[in-house]
């Protein structure tokens, strides 16, 4: 019996070792090392030199002044706070529509999913063309609505502050184009909502909107919650699209300098690995806090269909 258990454990260990070794080497160690380095001055060549909380003080000062890290935090929050709810809303609406039993349903589902498998850099190039202020299709179409033209990727303006679309809004539009992954998750969740609930509601005289509000949305709420957290993390960590559209520097005038890009420039152009590590840890703490807050609020907002909690 014991021998059998030991044999099973040794087999388990053999199969787990490659993964554990990789995890220890490439995830756990850098994770701990970056925390230690956040208290040091380090440029990858010289030995790390302990500087105390200097980098964190600098981050606090920059946050207060709204420059560098402060600007990056603002840009990141703007991007995440608008893109995440919009993505969720759009994905739910599209998923509900793609769930309608119409001819060509599979084709529509494929079409909406396709953009999410396109490489990010290609998508950026495509959107740079689409949002070209003079020759782009988006401004061309907006002309018919007597709106615009907007300088999407050449203006630091934001729609919320000036009523005119700018570079961050362009990035949000690009982000919305890739909601295909989320649609798939919502479609799976929609299939999971018992049909009997809709029948009962219909018998009670509930219209489509009421059924959507009282059955579909609560039924989707665990998935919405999952996507909210994942979306928040993804949008706070977004890097490639900002790097491509801003020629790697957060142009124009720092309006696309998000946290991940600022971190990259500090670490690999300015060789301030300690400062970049401190920033990464602040980012980690912010995300953890936001996620914890969301989990706390989810108790009242997410419906787990009778699951014991």
């Amino acid at each position: 019996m014991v021998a059998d258990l030991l044999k099973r454990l040794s087999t388990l260990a053999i199969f787990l070792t490659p993964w554990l070794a990789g995890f220890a080497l490439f995830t756990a160690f850098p994770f701990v090392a970056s925390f230690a380095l956040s208290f040091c001055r380090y440029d990858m060549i010289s030995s790390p030199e302990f500087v105390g909380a200097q980098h964190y003080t600098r981050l606090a000062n920059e946050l207060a002044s709204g420059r560098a890290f402060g600007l990056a935090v603002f840009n990141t929050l703007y991007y995440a706070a608008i893109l995440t709810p919009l993505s969720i809303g759009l994905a739910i609406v599209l998923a509900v529509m793609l769930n309608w039993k119409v001819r060509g349903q599979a084709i529509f589902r494929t079409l909406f999913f396709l953009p999410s498998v396109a490489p990010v850099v290609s998508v950026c190039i495509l959107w740079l063309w689409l949002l070209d202020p003079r020759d782009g299709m988006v401004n061309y179409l907006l002309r018919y609505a007597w709106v615009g033209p907007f300088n999407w990727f050449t203006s630091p303006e934001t729609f919320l502050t000036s009523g005119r679309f700018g570079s961050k809004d362009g990035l949000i539009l690009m982000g919305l184009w890739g909601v295909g992954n989320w649609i798939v998750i919502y479609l799976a969740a929609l299939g999971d909502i018992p049909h009997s609930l809709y029948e009962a509601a219909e018998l009670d005289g509930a219209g489509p909107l009421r059924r959507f509000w009282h059955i579909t949305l609560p039924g989707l709420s665990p998935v919405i919650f999952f996507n909210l957290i994942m979306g928040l993390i993804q949008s706070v960590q977004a890097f490639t699209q900002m790097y491509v559209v801003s020629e790697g520097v957060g142009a124009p005038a720092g309006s696309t300098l998000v946290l991940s890009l600022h971190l990259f420039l500090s670490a690999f152009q300015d060789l301030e690995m300690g400062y970049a590590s401190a920033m990464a840890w602040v980012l980690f703490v912010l995300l953890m806090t936001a996620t914890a807050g969301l989990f706390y609020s989810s108790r009242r907002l997410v419906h787990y269909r009778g699951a014991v909690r």
Partner: protein
Amino acid sequence: MTLRNVGFIALFIAAVAIVGVSQWRQLSQQPIDDPREEVIFWHFWGGRDRQVVEDVVRRFNETNKQYRVRAVAMPGNNLDVKLFLSISGGAPPDLINQDDPLIADWAERGALTPIEEIASPAEVAELREFLFPAAVRLTEYDQKLYGVCNGLDIRALYYNKTLLQSRGYEAPTSLEALNNIATEFTERNSEGRITRFGYVPDARRLWAWGIVFGGDFYDEDSQTPTADDERIVQALRWMGGASNRLGVTTSDIQAFRQGDQSLPGKPFPLLPISPDSPHGRYALIIDGQWRVRDIMESYESRTSQNLPVAEIGVCPLPPPQGGEQNAGWVNGNYFIVPRGARQSQGAWEFMKFWIGLDGHQHQAAKTCAAGGWIPVSQRVVDDEAFQNFLNEQPLFGEFVALAASENQHPIPMTPGAPYFNREIKQVGESAMLHREASAEKLLTETNDRIKHHLERLKK
């Protein structure tokens, strides 16, 4: 034996075979009986430039009896990180080619071997005398040469000669003349959309205009940034005032400029885009010598299709009164020898061969002519091989003349130069985007930030 096991064994054999063949191919390229010392050379060249590099290496290997260079093409992205890791790991290459303004940063961190430690004092003196002043400035930090410049990138003003002459204008020789051309040739169509700018400053060109206006971004003596120099303030004010002078909005300028250079497939904006008109989107534009190739290709393509063509000229950036003649911002490619390189002497021999020092000027002239690169020395320019190239590409001559000028300056050689560079570009953008912004205030704030950053690095 089950079918699954057979599959596993077949996969294993296939993997071993693939690895074996690739190793054999790699080994077969290395002559095992070559007694010469091997010099490992990292570079980032791609496309047709890579062929030129490989040809230089081949010619060096054919003539040098002591050293043999092995060129390793590396992706340009994060080359610096790879270098640092190789230095930390004790296995750096012997030579690297770079083009970012990183010399001072890396030298300060002890990542580079000064040329003074590789070459004799007489050789260093000869090298300094051999190079154009701009080529020395690009690699000099703390009064030492931490690299050897092997090609200069010069910016000048391209102008559409045919278009200008059609209204009695010539290439501008003063800022006032440039302003007149900018206004005269800025045109709108019947819908009010701008179809051409005579000239509009690019936010990234504050480096160039600041120098042309006579400004100095850095005080070498006190080791402090001086981006708020009065001449630079004037340059920024002039850049930010473009929309007022041209009677357009800043939004018009931003919309017009989008994708001038960044998008794939967008042609050099001075070149025609329509089959009917020989003129492009600008009458004047600043760009580097590599555009000569684009102009020649466009010219040949259009003449072969019997389409109208315009004559393009090149001139120096016109200064304001009291500004600098033949001035501008320069960058370029340079060799560096990492700290801990095993074959620094071999690297030095290869550098001399490439740039044309020590009697190699004919080889260097051939290299520059093949790549369309600007030599780093007048001796190479004067070589017959390069003179023949200039006869074929007369536009190139203006860039070569500018390369020899005393007034071509790179980004200041100071630790923190990448940050300095980003801040200067960003202040240019801010001035171009907000015409009400005070140039003086913008530059004072920018200079304070740069100063603060550099001081932090010094600590």
